[in-house]
């Protein structure tokens, strides 16, 4: 039986973007509505997909077509496939992507500068994001992964704020560096892995599934698990894992390679911030779980303490930095750093709880951060000022806005009944349990990570106190008449997010149903495969 759900999701936006090229730039309405239409169509496809999806059955809705088959003589055959599918890891993220992109389109309604270019880039970005969440062929993944950078770069560099060039170039360079790391490993893997389905012929495959099987490595190649080359003090597989880890950690972002994020966020227009925080950061965590951990399980085990420590550092460091931020958007950007640290901690634990928590955290942080950035955007649209100290007592003038800010802030703090709590509690439990279950992380990491919760409460509450409570006052050059409560369009984009945050906080099981089988398989696979591969010194 053939499914075309995923292809539909990926190619409809691309087709729409291609069609958009032939429409005159003046037809701003056309671009807005066509993008919205594409998003709604994707939502429909997604609903059909979710109906079709059976939790706990591994990778499903697979589409596999030959893409590049290149005979390169004695070097064998280069084979890259159009190989996409979803499982418990990618399904939540695809759901998140479609949802957030829809909201982002609604939020893009106010973009008036070069509408054509904007929406076409948005559509390309849309396809690239969904593509990278569904690709199971490393080359295809890498293609989509890189494809994402370009629209993002232009979206920040053209529609951004005052220091947009600086931010966009920083973003680009950082992520490009990460891409280079990934590329190196991809080439190494390509050399080392063959496709077992072709006997007698040497077929080099890019399939992630093939790469995850130790038996598919050609012996005495650079990344052969049994005879990996030594490079300096470590064997090549450990290096490869570290490179992949760095590549994805930049995206995640992990302290200390996170400084692109605050700048990119501060300068990016609101919808782009939303996509950046809600989806692009997830590629980092997704890449770790999809590629780095399964392909190099022994390295994942070897470095788990390192990863966990980096996660905890991110949590604390991001929280502290958020506390010191004077710009509201910067604060939220740093809180993202802090929250993505939890993803690292959960992954490092390699317990089912931790893995499921990480995936859930990615999903929930996607919704929450989207909401937070939209909320900042609402204020910025009105006053063009995001300095926290320039506001005071906003709650008296913007009641509904304050209510939604409360929802967003408390959700981000991990208050129960919001989705972040479920994710964080699972990560905490998993990380704490790891030592006694698989001996990977020390308990103290989880305990230190709880400081992140306190810090989160500290900076959010302090912000609430300064901006929304107290007597109403505006400083700086903010016009008093620019303050008004939410408009219908803003309700339209914020309320669904608030509802989603609440729904997945109170009824997490539908999502966890999807995630949990994956988490258990993943944890079991990585531990088993990792322990069966002996690390030569």
């Amino acid at each position, binding site marked *: 039986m053939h499914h075309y759900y995923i292809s539909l999701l990926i190619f409809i936006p691309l087709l729409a973007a291609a069609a958009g090229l032939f429409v005159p730039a003046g037809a701003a309405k056309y671009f807005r509505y066509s993008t919205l239409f594409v998003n709604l169509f994707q939502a429909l496809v997604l609903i059909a997909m979710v109906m079709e999806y059976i939790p706990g059955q591994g990778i499903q809705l697979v589409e596999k077509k030959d893409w590049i088959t290149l005979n390169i003589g004695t070097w064998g055959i280069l084979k890259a496939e159009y190989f996409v599918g979803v499982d418990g890891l990618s399904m939540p993220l695809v759901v998140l992507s479609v949802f957030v992109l829809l909201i982002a389109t609604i939020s893009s309604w106010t973009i008036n500068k070069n509408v054509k270019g904007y929406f076409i880039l948005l559509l390309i970005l849309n396809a690239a994001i969904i593509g990278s969440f569904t690709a199971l062929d490393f080359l295809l993944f890498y293609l989509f992964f890189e494809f994402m950078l370009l629209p993002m770069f232009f979206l920040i560099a053209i529609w951004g704020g005052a220091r947009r060039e600086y931010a966009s170039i920083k973003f680009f360079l950082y992520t490009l560096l990460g891409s280079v790391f990934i590329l190196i490993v991809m080439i190494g893997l390509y050399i080392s892995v063959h496709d077992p389905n072709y006997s007698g012929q040497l077929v080099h495959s890019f399939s992630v599934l093939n790469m995850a099987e130790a038996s598919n490595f050609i012996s005495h190649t650079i990344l052969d698990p049994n005879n990996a080359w030594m490079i300096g003090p470590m064997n090549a597989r450990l290096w490869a894992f570290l490179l992949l880890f760095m590549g994805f950690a930049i995206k995640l972002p992990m302290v200390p390679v996170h400084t692109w994020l605050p700048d990119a966020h501060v300068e990016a227009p609101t919808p782009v911030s939303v996509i950046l925080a809600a989806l692009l950061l997830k590629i980092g965590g997704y890449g770790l779980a999809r590629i780095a951990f399964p392909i190099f399980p022994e390295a994942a085990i070897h470095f788990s303490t390192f990863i966990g420590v980096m996660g905890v550092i991110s949590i604390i460091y991001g929280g502290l930095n958020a506390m010191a931020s004077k710009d509201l958007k910067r604060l939220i950007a740093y809180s993202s750093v802090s929250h993505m640290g939890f993803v690292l901690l959960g992954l490092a634990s390699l317990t089912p709880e931790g893995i499921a928590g990480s995936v859930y955290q990615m999903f929930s942080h996607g919704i929450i951060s989207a909401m937070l950035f939209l909320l900042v955007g609402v204020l910025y649209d009105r006053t063009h000022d995001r300095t926290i100290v320039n506001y005071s007592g906003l709650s008296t003038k913007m009641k509904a806005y304050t209510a939604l800010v409360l929802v967003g802030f408390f959700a981000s703090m991990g208050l129960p009944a919001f989705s972040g709590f479920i994710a964080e509690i699972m990560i905490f439990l998993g990380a704490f349990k790891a030592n006694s279950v698989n001996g990977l992380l020390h308990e103290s990491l989880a305990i230190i990570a709880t400081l992140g919760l306190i810090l989160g409460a500290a900076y959010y509450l302090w912000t609430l106190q300064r901006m929304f409570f*107290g007597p109403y006052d505006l400083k700086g050059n903010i016009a008093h008449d620019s303050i008004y409560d939410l408009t219908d369009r803003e309700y339209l984009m914020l309320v669904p997010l608030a509802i989603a945050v609440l729904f997945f906080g109170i009824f997490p099981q539908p999502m966890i149903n999807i995630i949990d089988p994956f988490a258990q398989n993943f944890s079991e696979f990585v531990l088993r495969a990792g322990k069966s591969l002996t690390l030569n010194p």
Partner: protein
Amino acid sequence: MPDTPTHYTAFFEICLLLVVLLPLLSFVVSGRIPERYSWAVTFTAPLFLLISTICAIYVFTAVWHHQPYSAKVDWFAIGGTMVSAGIYLNDIAALMLLVVTFISFLVHVYSTGYMAGDAGITRYFSMLGFFTFAMLGIVLADSLLLMFVFWELVGFSSYMLIGHWTEKEEAAAAAKKAFLLNRIGDAGFLVGLMLIWTNTGTFDIVQLSGINEAFSWQTTASLCLFAGVMGKSAQFPLLTWLPDAMEGPTPVSALIHAATMVAAGVFLLARVDFLFTPIALNTVAVVGILTALMAALSALVQFDIKKILAYSTISQLGLMVAAIGAGSPASAMLHLFTHAFFKAGLFLCAGIIIHVLHQAQQQAHEHFNVQDIRNLGGLRKKLPFTFLAFIICGSALAGIPFFSGFLSKDAILTAITIWKGEAFSWKWMVLASAFIVSFITVIYTFRMVWTIFMGEEKLTASLPVVEPPMIMRGPVAILSISSVWLLVDINPFSFEGWLFNTLHSGDHFHIGAISILSALWIVLAVSAAYFVFRNKTIHADLLLNNFYLDKLYFKVVGKPSWSLAAFTDYVDKRWIDGFIHASAYAQVTVAHLVGWFDRAIVDGTVNGMASLSRGVGNFTRSFQGGKIQGYILWAILAIIIFLIWVLF
């Protein structure tokens, strides 16, 4: 002893659901009422709570002395293990259910008078409903995780209600402080949850109570849970938020910060009592009694009427916690029960005083701090009803015989007496401290009553003060009536009434000598108060500022973390970004070099003809510079080249 109606009827379940869901409904409905119809909320919200209370009474009667009711649904799976959300309704929970709904109802009714005309009245009632719901959640939760959920949610509603008057900066600061200190405690709670999950793989209280062995992790886990209690019940060292929380509306202080939420800690301790190892219990007892002593001393010198009550609340909570530590959850629950009534009564009385004086001030256009007891005096004439209610509730607080407080305090003293054992040890100091606390309690209660109601009127003399409407007096009256001994037992000198005997499992507990001793002690304290402390004002900055704990925390925790934050900011901007910039500059330099190479060499070759012809053009053009010597030079060079070309 429990008889066996093993099946609870569907009606019972509906009632139980109503008890829990009606406050939630009130939260939703009140929040959605448009501003124009905000008066409607004063009908809907108390109505919901009334129904809820009635249901709660039914539920209570059905459960009390019977088998616990439990029901659960799957909530979500953590690592393959399904965590359920469920209700576990035993005697303690049923009692708390009743107390919470009942007092919440009274406070709702009272608030309709107190908050009348407030701009944020819908938000107020909405959050009050939400608080009641969350509090009931704590009470009913059958698993520690679910309890933690509601534990945090009551913290949230407390935050919202303390900060209800958003324009007041102190309110916002107090709300933030309350939530933060609670969060610190909750972090401990969370660690406790992690420990329990790691070691048992379940959060279910019933399943957990099956653990009979004392594992080493239990000490840590129970102390971690106790950290949560420290936050919520304002125990040392996390006690400083509660006095500040008095910035909220007074009914809120009565409901949340006196009767119910702060008692949640005690309730939690009583519920997971089985987890606590002897070492943990000893710690709990010491912390409790220390808190009680510190808060009682601080209450002695406060001037703000609500702060006195707040410190007295902390002190009483400390006593309850100490009782738990002494191994007698029953006496702690008894005191919680009586305390809920008389302390709520006291707060509501204080609320009346504040409310009527405010109104009178507005009529007379005078302004002074009505909460400062130094400005008050002689109000017994103008507010006879409030005076009476205050005296009754105050007597209960002071533990005067024939009032409920005497009995419950008696129970605690008895518990500590038994716990201390025969041999002389540090535990005697706990007992002594408990007696000192009850002594001080009498003194500050007496001081409060005396300064506010006795003597001559001070700043209030000229104010047209009248008693508040019935809607506010009614709840106070009910609470005052509930503060007499009859609530506990018919015998005014025995706490072993219906309540205690149900909760307490074990031997006959009552020691008559303690009762008598305690009664004598109280009489001594009252006379000391009358003869010694009546007109004395104690000035002690140390006590007034609660042992400078706030300053200490600010210096030890607040400031360093703030500087750490500034430092990370610096690290980000200077070191990391500095490094990035440096490498970027290096890159740009290399890029320039490469660019030069590109332009000069690659482009020169690749764009051969074009750039060459242009270059030649420019080159020859430069001959026409108008400078004779230049012409000559080029001519000569050309000749030289020509010569070389021709002759070689």
